[in-house]
């Protein structure tokens, strides 16, 4: 796998933008390479074709099955960000969750 592409989505793309920064800091610290970006809920479907995995905030977990249906077209997994990791703004844990999901896809 080349550069890992991780899409984060939440209702306005704001809290996940901060999480992106945290994840990028962690990725850099371990010498990994990943493209991580955040969008709001309305853009999630349009952006997911470019991603290897999609992680969504708790405020849009009710949209998970709808988003997964769309993501199936690109063979991409969608999951809700782990609650503990989200609540602590833990970039390392969220990145590891993304890696696990991508692993399941290979």
């Amino acid at each position, binding site marked *: 796998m080349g550069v890992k592409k991780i899409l984060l989505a939440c*209702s306005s793309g704001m809290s996940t933008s901060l999480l992106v920064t945290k994840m990028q800091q962690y990725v850099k610290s371990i010498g990994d390479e990943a493209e991580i970006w955040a969008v709001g809920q309305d853009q999630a479907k349009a952006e997911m074709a470019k991603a290897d995995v999609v992680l969504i905030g708790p*405020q849009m977990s009710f949209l998970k099955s709808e988003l997964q249906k769309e993501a199936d077209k690109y063979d991409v997994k969608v999951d809700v960000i782990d609650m503990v990791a*989200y609540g602590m703004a833990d970039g390392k844990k969220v990145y590891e969750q993304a890696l696990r999901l991508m692993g399941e896809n290979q």
Partner: protein
Amino acid sequence: MNEANIDVLTNEQIGFQLILHSGNARSKVLEALRQSRQGDEARAAALLKEAEEDLNRAHHIHFQMIQREASDEKIEFSLILMHAEDHLMSTLTMKELVKELIEWGKQRL
């Protein structure tokens, strides 16, 4: 999930905790409306109750913040905290409206 004690959290984490609990509530409120629309009123009621428990967790954090401010301890303001407040307030509004919508839907049957 345990009730968070804000003393062990950074300001940023306090914001994320508020968004987490309001966000869980938001998802459950909207899911409740969907369930009601599909005729499962029991599931809808259970989801609304769960949403209220999530909102209580958010209120518990909020309460500690207000207490902290009342004891003249400055709370550092940030965009993420303002955003968290928006989340909490909009979810409260959403919950009240969805409750009414569900009742309205029942009357129309």
